[in-house]
């Protein structure tokens, strides 16, 4: 318990450091870009120019802007005002899109884990069978087909040809299901392969032979003695998996026209809305950091030999 507490505190410290580094780099880049709303090269009417300057505190020296913005983030969680979306603060945009993106990502991860682990276990247990070959073939296919292609094919198939899902929209489970499936598919495929490899490795270990020699039924041996060890690589993959789901959601939100933060991010980046882009980079950094820490924690919970550091 003490381990976990001190680990959490230390990780939190590292997170602050990471976020600070990301913030600094983004800030410098933002100010360095020529043609950005803060640079003097822009030709805007003087009235608007004045307004902009006042709003973004541009008259202050850069160092002061840097600290002011940072203080704003730290004390009030205020990420500033969106440059392109008039009348919106970055926080408002995030608050609006976040529930959508978060439920999409969580659903995708849950789907990927349940499908991937089941497929991996089945194919390891029936290793070499037709089922194993079919599952692993599908898994390689799942890894090799980009999810935007998969999504387009899925739309074609399930929306137009066999209409069981609505084309777009947000709110009901039916509307979320198809994007989540497409988003989770490559992750599920990877998890299936990891689980299978892990299962086969653990199945070859001596302690599994001991478990069989103890007279335990096959099901008990597989579920209690093999699966936990086989899941260790899957648990470590969950960090990268989260990153991959966040990445994929950028595209899928575009294809399925979902109002998540991913679609805002593409817009923000291509329209050079730097405050919005930075707000999102910071949000995602925090998310990913928390996820990675959770992964480390659960790894230590499953494997008593691992010391948290």
């Amino acid at each position: 318990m003490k381990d976990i507490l001190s680990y959490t505190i230390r990780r939190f410290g590292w997170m602050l450091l990471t976020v600070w580094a990301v913030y600094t780099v983004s800030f410098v880049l933002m100010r360095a870009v020529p043609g950005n709303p803060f640079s003097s090269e822009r030709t805007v009417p003087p009235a608007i120019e004045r307004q902009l300057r006042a709003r973004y505190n541009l008259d202050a020296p850069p160092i002061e802007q840097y600290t002011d913005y940072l203080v704003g983030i730290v004390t009030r969680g205020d990420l500033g005002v969106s440059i392109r979306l008039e009348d919106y603060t970055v926080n408002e945009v995030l608050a609006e899109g976040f529930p959508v993106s978060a439920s999409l990502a969580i659903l995708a991860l849950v789907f990927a884990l349940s499908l991937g682990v089941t497929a991996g276990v089945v194919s390891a247990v029936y290793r070499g069978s037709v089922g194993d070959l079919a599952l692993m073939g599908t898994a390689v296919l799942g890894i090799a087909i980009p999810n935007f292609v998969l999504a387009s094919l899925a739309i074609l198939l399930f929306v137009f040809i066999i209409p069981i899902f609505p084309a777009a929209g947000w709110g009901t489970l039916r509307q979320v299901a198809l994007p989540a499936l497409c988003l989770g598919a490559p992750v599920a495929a990877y998890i299936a392969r990891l689980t299978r490899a892990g299962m086969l490795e653990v199945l070859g270990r001596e302690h599994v032979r001991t478990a069989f020699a103890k007279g335990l039924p096959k099901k008990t041996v597989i579920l209690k003695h093999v699966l936990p060890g086989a899941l260790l690589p899957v648990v470590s993959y969950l960090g990268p998996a989260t990153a991959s789901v966040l990445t994929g959601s950028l595209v899928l939100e575009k294809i399925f026209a979902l109002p998540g933060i991913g679609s805002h991010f593409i817009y923000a980046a291509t329209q050079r809305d730097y405050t919005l882009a930075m707000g999102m980079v910071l949000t995602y950094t925090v998310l990913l950091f928390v996820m990675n820490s959770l992964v480390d924690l659960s790894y230590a919970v499953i494997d008593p030999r691992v010391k948290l550091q």
Partner: protein
Amino acid sequence: MTQTDPQNTTTATESSQTKSSDEPILRVNDLHVSFKTDEGMVRAVRGVSFDVRAGETVAIVGESGSGKSVTNLAMMGLVPKPPGNIDSGQAFFGGRDLLSMSDRGLQSVRGRHIAMIFQDPMTALNPLMTVEQQLTEMTRLHLSLTRHDARKRAIEMLGLVGITAPEKRLRDYPHQFSGGMRQRVMIAMALSCEPELLIADEPTTALDVTIQAQIMELLADLQARKGTAIVLITHDLGVVAGVADRVLVMYAGRIVEKADVRSLFAAPQHPYTIGLLGSLPNVESNRDEPLAAIPGQPPDLSQPIVGCSFRDRCEHRFERCQTDDPILTPRESLGSEPHLAACHADVNTGETRQ
């Protein structure tokens, strides 16, 4: 030629006579096991027969790859299939053939009636489960103990194998134990359902020499108390001399010599056994005299073997050894059990036997 002092073996033989009855609890009959590998079919066990009586200790000796472990794993249904396959044979235990039993039937025998301990206690215990979980899951399954009773039993067993403060250690994971302690845990686990037969597959090979002696002593002590029969698989003849009643020597998937321990050490009848005994270091022998190693390599079991499998390494070989595979034939025994060896030569005279 070195020979162990006959005095050592007498005690073992004598005690065995008091505890073993004549009815075998396990009878293995003409067992054949093969493995499919990249190099072809490897016939790992090529017709092995033996029996084990209640309460006695049978040692199976041989180099690695001689099929001694596979024989026992096959009996327990623990040979991985594929690549392994049991081609033929029976193993009768309690009147039923283990090799033709259903999975369910085998499960009720494993752990309950026949238990196993393995060579490397570092890997044989599940690293992700506490000792308590690993000890109690067996008694709860086979003896239908409640959680509470199973725990009590686990504490009792750990105490029995000499682990101090067993209540506390139950919560520990295997990596928190030393190698010797882990092997003790393994033994506690194996004996917790009071099996009739314990198969110990090189139980001391991975341990320090001092610990080895302790573990062997523990096994002998527990055997005396519980009357468990033991099949001891080892390549260490030194261990055998101290604890075994009877010895089977295996070479290239076959039993080449079978005798009671006293007779085997006093008058080995197979050139391979003689070689094995010769490679044991002996305090009395001359220091300048090098340890005799058996020259050559065991045969490639993926190729068909014609004639005697040991002939290429044998100093007594004849024409006949090229073509005829010797079978186990009785020799003069110095003990109470028959002494059998599979060799065309009479090792005492060096001449061919008729």
